[in-house]
Structure formats: structure tokens, C-alpha cells
């Protein structure tokens, strides 16, 4: 059986041209959604723009792949559904920590990572979110 080619990620494609994570934003009803699509899934308006997101959220659920499926993805690695702070959820990877330390509800922040010839939005533990004053800027966090 010939395996179908791996398609491009619209999530990934959308971030290659911008500095931060974006979601589709319906100009008619305000709905934010991912992945980017030509129509709003709530009101079917086709007036769709983009909105920059905070890049922060939490792990809604995850799995640790222990079996190898593809040479580009040696196990173990964490595949997760990330609930972004602004509402939309997306599938991604949790990196920057031991797979065994990932928990449902863990706070994460986006980290853009080059993978092959692409840049993908992955997520790492959000150290800043552990602080009660989570409104601090990244610059302030870096001083800690």
C-alpha cells in the first residue's frame, strides 16, 4: 500500500508568515476558530480575518507516543490538544519537559520550532503562568 503524502498543516502554514500564533476570526459574529477555514463554523459568514493570540493555554488532553509510526517522529513524544486562552483548541506537541511530567491542565505557551523546512507552533511549559501575576510581559519574566 502506498501511504498518502503528509499534507501541509494550515496551522503551520499560517504561522510561517507571522510573528505569533493566529486564529481565524469571523468578522460577522466574532467567533475565533482553528484551523483556519474559509467559512465561520457558527454563522457561515465568509468574511474571515485573522487575530493574533496570546500563544498561551493549557493541556486539554495528551498522549505519549511510545510506538514509532514515522521516521521523522522518534518516540517518545507528546501529542496534545491545547486549549488556547482565547478559546480555540489545536493539536500540537508539548516540548521542553519530560513527557512523563505533562498533565491535563498544565499551563503551556507557544514556542515556534523549525522542523524540516517549516516552522511549527509547539508548546512548552509556561513558567510565567505559575506566577499569580500572569499579566507580566515576557521581558519581565526573562529577568527572573
Amino acid at each position, binding site marked *: *500500500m502506498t501511504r498518502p503524502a503528509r499534507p501541509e498543516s494550515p*496551522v*503551520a502554514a499560517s504561522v510561517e508568515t507571522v510573528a505569533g500564533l493566529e486564529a481565524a476570526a469571523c468578522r460577522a459574529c466574532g467567533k475565533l476558530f482553528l*484551523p483556519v477555514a474559509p467559512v465561520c463554523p457558527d454563522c457561515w459568514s465568509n468574511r474571515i480575518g485573522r487575530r493574533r493570540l496570546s500563544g498561551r493555554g493549557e493541556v486539554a*488532553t495528551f498522549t505519549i507516543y511510545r510506538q514509532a*509510526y514515522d521516521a521523522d517522529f522518534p518516540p517518545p*513524544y507528546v501529542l496534545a490538544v491545547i486549549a488556547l486562552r482565547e478559546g480555540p*483548541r489545536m493539536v500540537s*506537541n508539548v516540548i521542553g519537559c519530560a513527557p512523563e511530567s505533562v498533565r491535563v491542565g498544565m499551563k503551556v505557551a507557544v514556542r515556534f520550532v523549525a522542523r524540516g523546512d517549516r516552522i511549527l507552533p509547539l508548546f512548552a511549559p509556561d513558567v510565567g503562568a505559575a506566577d499569580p501575576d500572569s499579566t507580566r510581559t515576557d521581558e519581565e519574566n526573562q529577568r527572573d
Partner: protein
Amino acid sequence: MTSRQVIVAGVGHTAFGRLTGRTALDLETEACRLALRDAGLAPGDIDGLITDPGPAQGVLQGIEPHYVRLGRTLGLAPDFAGTELLGGASSVSSIQRAAMAIGSGLCSVCLCVYGDMALSTEGSFAYPRGEEAAFGFFGATGLHALAARRHMARFGTRREHFAEVAIAARAHAARTPHAQLRTPLDIDGYRASRMIAEPLCLADCCLVSDGAAAVVLCAADRTAGLPARPVRVLAHGQAHSLGTFSNPEHFDTLPAARCGPVTLARAGLTAGDVDVAMLYDCFTIVVLMQLEAYGFCKPGEGGDFVTGGRIGPGGALPVNPSGGLMAEGYGGGMLHVVEAVRQLRGTAEGRQIAGAEIALVSGHGLAMNTHATLILGR
């Protein structure tokens, strides 16, 4: 729901396992021949054909749909035909489509067929999951692991609860002569099973099989003189959740929560009336989620429900008495229909559930998007 009563007149299947040297077409024709013989009908009686090509054939259909290839080989010129595209819900939905066609008078004797060489076809279940394959999202196990992890986090469900489902399936299969995996499993064996995608280990996953199964549906007005005790189609239904993974409910509930209780009610029944539950068991977690969705227990209580062998042989609710996808063989869901019919006929021999009158058969497919429900009665 239908104007004509629809009857299951015949069932048949091949061996399941690694069937080196066979082809899906070859297996499908064998299953059809057996089902037709069981029904006491002849090829010329068939005027409907609905097929489920299975996971490996499904992606290879190209411009020749599966039903065309099989129908041509069987020399059929049916009045109604098609191929289902609901993933693991396709076998049950093929029965539904046939029942609707017969009920509406479009055909009278419809063959429903599943067949595949999924075990002998490399990578049948290791496919990339659409755009998300960019993040290493492959196969069916990782997807269901996401649901399993949610269940554990929300309700305190433990791996021991998943183990109960796997152990019960293997105990059932030990009593099923044609089952692919008849060796018993205990909790130590479950714990020793290697992890695939945490929290799901190999023992949480169903089998991959070569094999075929077929079911003949017939209008009740055509069943005079047929040999087998008729099994009636009492009700059927579907529900789908076609949104993206962005839907916060996606990994928490199955579409079965919508079509399950509704379909039972359409037959004038509740979960408590079900004698034989043939639940699509691609992964242990899906059995727990369906027990909740159909109302056998409350949401979140699936783990407690299966504890203590309740769904095993001799339990209060035997689930998949033939062993199901986990141990009988991956029959797409058509083997679930076959076993329901045998139980209702009273011909399930060493695994017969005494006095079985009502059977529930479910199908679950794709990225947890599709669900189909079938209620059969004696």
C-alpha cells in the same frame, strides 16, 4: 420507521486472522456464499448490495467503488447498491441503508458485506491523521488515547478499568471457536503489555485481521419457507460529530450519546432491556464511553460499571460475547451483527446468552466522528 418489516435472513463469515495468499475479493465472495446459504436463498434472489471495504481497501478504492468491484464479480445487477464511508460505523450503517431501501420498496433482498486484508496490508492502521500529522499524529491509537486521558482526568478512571474490558473480551473469545485470539488475559498480562500511545497499551487495542463477513437482509414478506429463525430489525439510528478537534466536547463524548438512547426509544426500549450488547470495541476506552452514552451507566461511571467482570461471560451485561474486535477479529463491525443474530437465534452454542431477545449493535468510526446504532429483536 419503515413501511415493510425487515428481517435478517442469513449471516456468514470467513476465518479471521492472517490469511496469507487470499485477497479481499476472494474473502468477500466466500462470506457472501456462506450468508446466502445460511439464508436459504440463491444468487438470483439478491437485488441489493451495500458494502464496507474496511480500512485498507477503503483508501484504495480510487475511481472504482468497492461495491462495483464486488458486484461485478458476483454477477449482480441490483436495484439498489452503494458503499459506506463512515469508517468503523460502516458495517452497521450498511445494514441501516439496506433496511431503509427494503422498507421503502427499493429492493427486497439486500446483501451487506465487509471484507479486507487489513492485517496483510502494511500500515492499515498507521495512517497520518490529516494536517495534524505535522505534529506526529498517526494511527487510531493516539487519537483514542486522547479520549482515554480525558476520561482519567475527569473521572478518576484507571488503567485497571480499561484492563477489565480487554480481559472480558479475551474470556469471551476463549468460548468462540473461530476467534482469532483465544488465549486468556489477566491483569498481569495486561500490565506487561507494551505501551503504544499512553495510556493505551497493546492490550487496549483491537486486533487487525484479514477476513470478511456478510449479512442478508430480507423483506418480511419474502421470508416464507426460509430455514433460519427470523431476526427482526427493530430500529436504527446515526449521529455524527463533524466539527474539528477545536470542539471542547470532542474527546469527552461520543455521538452515541445522541443516537443511542433515541434509537432505543424508537424501539420502545431502554438500555435495561438489552440482553446482548455488541459494542464497537476498537479500543477499551470506547467501550466505557459507549456504556455511558447508551445509558447503561451514568457519564463517568463506565470504569466502575465494568469492574468485577460485569461485561464478561456470565456477567450482568455480557458485552461482545464472541470476543469482538479485541479478540474475535477485526470484522469492521459486521461480525458484531453476525454474533447478535446468532445470539437471538439461540445458536451461539457454548457462549449462548440464555433467553436473549434484544440485541444492540453499535459502530463507531473515523476521528470519533461517526456513530451508528442497530437494534435487533427475536
